[in-house]
Structure formats: C-alpha cells, structure tokens
C-alpha cells in the first residue's frame, strides 16, 4: 500500500519538478530539488490533491515540504488509512 502511494507521489513530483523518479527520495525537499520554488510547490499541492482526490488544509500545505511529510499527511487523509 505504502509502496504504491510512494510511487504515485514520486510520479507527481517528477511531473511537477521535471526530474526523474530516481532522483526523488524520502529526503527530497526544496533544499535538494532546485526547481522546488513557491510556484512549483503550489502546483505540487494541487497535483497531489487531484491524484489522490483529497483536499489539504492551509496548515497541511505549509507542512508538505519533503517526500516523507507528504507521505505522512496523505496517509492520514486517505480513507483506507483512517482508523
């Protein structure tokens, strides 16, 4: 399940930032991806919402600053992962 979500996140990040999936790791962030500026960050959030059919709160949007945090927030949002 997590692998599938991770792959889908990487696909979205790859498309938004214009890099290959292999260049994306758990630690990928604005510090490691040069093209991750504020415009790309906004595009990333909207693309993740479309891919996973979820809606992020304003607080979430500020938190989504690396692959690991994106995964954590998405796992909380996705219905099959809610307790």
């Amino acid at each position, binding site marked *: 399940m997590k692998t599938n979500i991770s792959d889908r996140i990487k696909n979205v990040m790859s498309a938004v930032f214009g890099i290959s999936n292999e260049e994306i790791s758990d630690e990928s962030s*604005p510090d490691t991806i040069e093209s991750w*500026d*504020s*415009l790309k*960050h*906004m*595009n990333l*959030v*909207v693309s993740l919402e479309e891919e996973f059919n979820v*809606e*992020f*709160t*304003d*607080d979430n*949007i*500020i938190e989504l*600053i690396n692959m690991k945090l994106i995964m954590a927030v998405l796992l909380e949002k996705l219905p099959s992962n809610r307790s």
Partner: protein
Amino acid sequence: MYNPYMVGKQIYLRHPTEEDVQGKWHEWFSDEELTKFMTDRFWPNSKEAQLEFYKSLINNKERLVLSLINKSNNEHVGVVSLSAINWVHRHADIALAIGEKKYRKGSIAIEAFSMMLKVAFVRLNLKNVKSSYIALNKESEALHRLMKFTKVGVYKKFVCIDSNNIDVIVEVLDRETWLKRNT
C-alpha cells in the same frame, strides 16, 4: 515577538510600526520586479508617502494592513492587507506583497495569504474575500487555485505590461468553502 496579531509557523502578523516605515517598506513599492504585476504602483514610492499611508491606517476600520515578520530573525519581510472592508455585506479585497527578495521563492507568501484568509473569515467574520491579479502573474494564479478561489470575472485587456494589453482576473473565496477545507 512584538505585538503579534496572528502567529504562524514561519511568520507572524502584526500592526505596522513607525520602525517599519523607517525601514525598507517604502522601497518595496518602488521596486520594478515587485510592482510589475500591481495595477496601481507605477509611480515611485517615498518614505514620506509611506509615513502618510501608515498614519492613515491607525484606527482605520475599512482597511487592515499587517506586517509580515520572520519569526526566526524578526525581519519585516512584507505586508498583507484587507481593503475596502464592507461591514454591511461583509466582504473585502485581499492583497499581498513579499518585499524582501530572498523570501519571494519560499512558502512565506502561501502562509501569509492563508493567515490573512483566517483573519478575514474567523477574526473579522467576513463572508467573502475578493482578489484580482494580472493574468501574466502565474504565482498569483497558482495561489488562488491552491486556496480554492473561484474565478468570477475578467477585465479584458485592462492593463498594459511591457506594451501588451493584459487581462485582469477577479476571484472570490466564500467563508463556507474556506471553513469546509480548514475545519
């Protein structure tokens, strides 16, 4: 923090001070890059004009201008505002400027815009927030998509940028849409 009005993760909002006026606030609104996509900032700004503007804000209930302060170093990095506040119909116009260039590529703009929406809908209990931006401004367009604004109109070829006539986009966010996403 001095006199915080709302505290976020990276920044806090507070009422502007005379120290802000003595700083670089006025220079931001002369800056060619920052003002390129502003519809009414084609004239150079001055410290004197900024001081007059600052004085006009004191006790003003139709316009709320807040300074954005970087929590980590107390630097004044920009301003965010609600203007034309209508207390009968409960709507206002939102605007944002990140003055300090080094902060323009980060997420401070997103946080500041988001915090001002919270001020509008929660602290001031407004019903609608209106915004407009020049169609070439891709950052503004993305910010409005992100915050779930609805495009309600277009002023066709309304402004002239680099000798080209460009549309101005008008968008609105209502309180219910904001609350649904943030509660």
